[in-house]
């Protein structure tokens, strides 16, 4: 029982990550009709914003300490972070410790900028082009972004720890009447789950309750009519692209402590995020979120030793198996709209 609860928690957490990525991808699919293979790269940029923030906070003055030596026998260089010399050692260290959450200050402007530049500079010219062209150009862009990141940060994964206070695990089980030490779960993953829920709710509220959102939803449903009403839908779509990039970036930033960022991270998530979006149904935001959670939970449950004992390796193929079953029983995924990307 406790094992099942733990795997459900894992599934919710994994699902939150999938849902968040799929949500951003669907915003671009649904509003702009563009197959964006660079979406994983946006996720990665978010994660590297966290790395960058960590680097910035660790920028240090170098002092040569004659009393110690390095591996070649030269005097050791000691680094003193500027943050610590400005704010004092204790406050400075605390700021450094909170590097990942603080990088939200970096992620939002960077992602809005990247999203805007991408849409205005590149994607805009591909609205009327075949999907094949969109795939190739965004795939090329994803490779280029990955290589640029590699040039600056190397190919090795980079450790980006969560704040000490949110590291480790807590005993959730005691609260709901389990024996102590049976249902223990990671604090950061719980934080991630609520963070994801907040973002998802925020995006839905934005689309549901603001005039801007209403126009965008109308544009998703029937772009031409909205255009004929004299509304500049293009400008709004640019904003939506920026928002989608932000969602992807925030998802990546908060995921950095879970998966140490490396330059190929985007490609690792690319295929999976497409599967989630399509299983959810093209053009459906609730579908994307639902599919994210369904696939996350199914994958976690299939990783249980009891399940793997019956079918070895099922955890490696389950996502694709479930995707096939869903797409065969529901022609347009869980909640897809008719005629979207069916040609």
């Amino acid at each position: 029982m406790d094992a099942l609860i733990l795997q459900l928690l894992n599934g919710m957490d994994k699902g939150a990550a999938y849902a968040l990525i799929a949500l951003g991808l669907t915003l671009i699919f649904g509003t702009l009709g563009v197959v964006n293979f660079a979406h994983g790269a946006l996720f990665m940029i978010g994660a590297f914003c966290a790395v960058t923030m960590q680097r910035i906070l660790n920028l240090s003055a170098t002092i040569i300490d004659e009393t110690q030596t390095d591996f070649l026998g030269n005097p050791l260089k000691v680094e003193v972070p500027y943050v610590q010399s400005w704010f004092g050692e204790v406050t400075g260290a605390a700021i450094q410790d909170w590097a990942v959450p603080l990088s939200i200050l970096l992620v939002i402007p960077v992602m809005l900028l990247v999203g805007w530049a991408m849409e205005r500079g590149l994607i805009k010219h591909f609205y009327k082009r075949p999907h094949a062209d969109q795939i190739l150009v965004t795939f090329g862009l994803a490779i280029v972004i990955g290589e640029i990141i590699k040039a600056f940060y190397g190919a090795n994964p980079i450790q980006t720890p969560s704040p000490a206070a949110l590291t480790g695990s807590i005993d959730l089980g005691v609260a709901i009447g389990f024996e102590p030490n049976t249902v223990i779960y990671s604090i950061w993953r719980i934080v991630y789950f609520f963070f994801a829920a907040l973002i998802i709710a925020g995006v839905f509220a934005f689309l549901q309750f603001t005039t801007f959102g209403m126009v965008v939803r109308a544009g998703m449903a029937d772009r031409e009519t909205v255009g004929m009403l004299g509304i500049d839908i293009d400008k709004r779509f640019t904003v939506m692209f920026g928002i989608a990039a932000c969602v992807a970036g925030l998802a990546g930033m908060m995921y950095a402590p879970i998966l140490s960022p490396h330059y190929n991270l985007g490609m690792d998530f690319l295929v999976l995020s497409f599967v989630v979006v399509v299983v959810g149904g093209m053009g459906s935001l609730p579908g994307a979120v639902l599919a994210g959670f369904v696939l996350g939970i199914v994958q976690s449950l299939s990783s249980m030793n009891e399940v793997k004992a019956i079918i070895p390796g099922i955890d490696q193929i389950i996502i694709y198996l479930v995707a096939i079953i869903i797409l065969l029983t529901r022609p347009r995924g869980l909640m897809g709209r008719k005629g979207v990307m069916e040609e």
Partner: protein
Amino acid sequence: MLGLNSRDLRLFVIVCALCLLAPILLNPFPVASSLGESFNAGYPALMQRFVIFGLLVIGFNILFGLTGYLSFGHAAFLGVGSFAAVWMFKLLSYNIVPAIILSVIVAGLFSVVIGYIALRRSGIYFSILTLAFAQMMYSIAYSDLVGKMFGTIVTNGETGLQVYNDDPQFLMGEGAPTVPHLFGLEMNSAFTWKVGGWEFIFQNGYYLSALFMILGFYLSIRIFRSPFGMMLRAIKSNQTRMSYTGLDTKPYMLAAFVISGMYAGLAGGLLAAMDPLTGAERMFWTASGEIVVMAILGGVGTLLGPVFGAGVIKYLENIVSKINSDILHSWFAFMPEWMENLVVNILYPFVGKGWHLTLGLLFMAVVIFLPGGLMQLGEKILALFGRKKKSDDAKTGATEPAE
């Protein structure tokens, strides 16, 4: 002649000539020159890849170019073809005939099953279904899940399947070659023609692969020009209308899918016949993605484009990735040192370990400036020379009736 109209015949002859002369055309520089050391591509292993991947993408183009159905799992058929072929080497002998036959059959069977299921959906739903099947097959092969289930080795996991000295090889005669061969004609034997500083290598394996590609190319022209091809184009332009006319489009689609899968299986079998080892990563989604990219890069729906697309990517992968900073320095050694360093520093990020960057930029540049793929570049060049030669590009191909 050969059932081709004059324009197609000319194209076909050109392809034949290119294949025949590739060992010479691809080695334009003397061996010992620094250009030759860096840019000559006329060595057998790479030429084999050019034609085998060309064949693969020609097959893919029959599905994607004619019907518009984008399969994102085509590498799976390449993979099963290779596995089938290596198993034939392990069980029977190094003769490539049974290996290639079985690889086509096995890939055909897999594509019937997967095609039958995946073709129940269209558009991106179809793409994701093919992707899901391919990824499942990749995972199964990578961890050898089938083998584990039966306590034996089927795909040999990440290490890949290869032939061991103690494999049964039931049909292996005394003194038979211990490398893949066609009734004694060894695939890796070659003869070398030396002219001055030049050196051209003519290898059996390459010419066999080239022969298959030429046959595949011929078949693809015939399909493009056949009523069957017309039917597929009609489905591409409006499947719903086709259905309304009372026509069941499914058998046509399935036929196209299976033909294209068998091309991939043949390519997989050939890859194994040239180099008898295969691994699961041949089926990974990036491999499928590479096929899609090759087709788009060359020009979707054109007859020759896919071959060029495959060639360009394989060239980058094998030639540009080998250019390191020492080689760059040797090129620009004639410059003053500061200028040499500057030029090398500018170029270095794009070659060697940075060859992916070149690849990515190339994709973007082609899509942005040449919407018709590399074939369009060829046309532009031809137009530049004032030769108003009508080439077989997507637009003319799609609108002209079959002749």
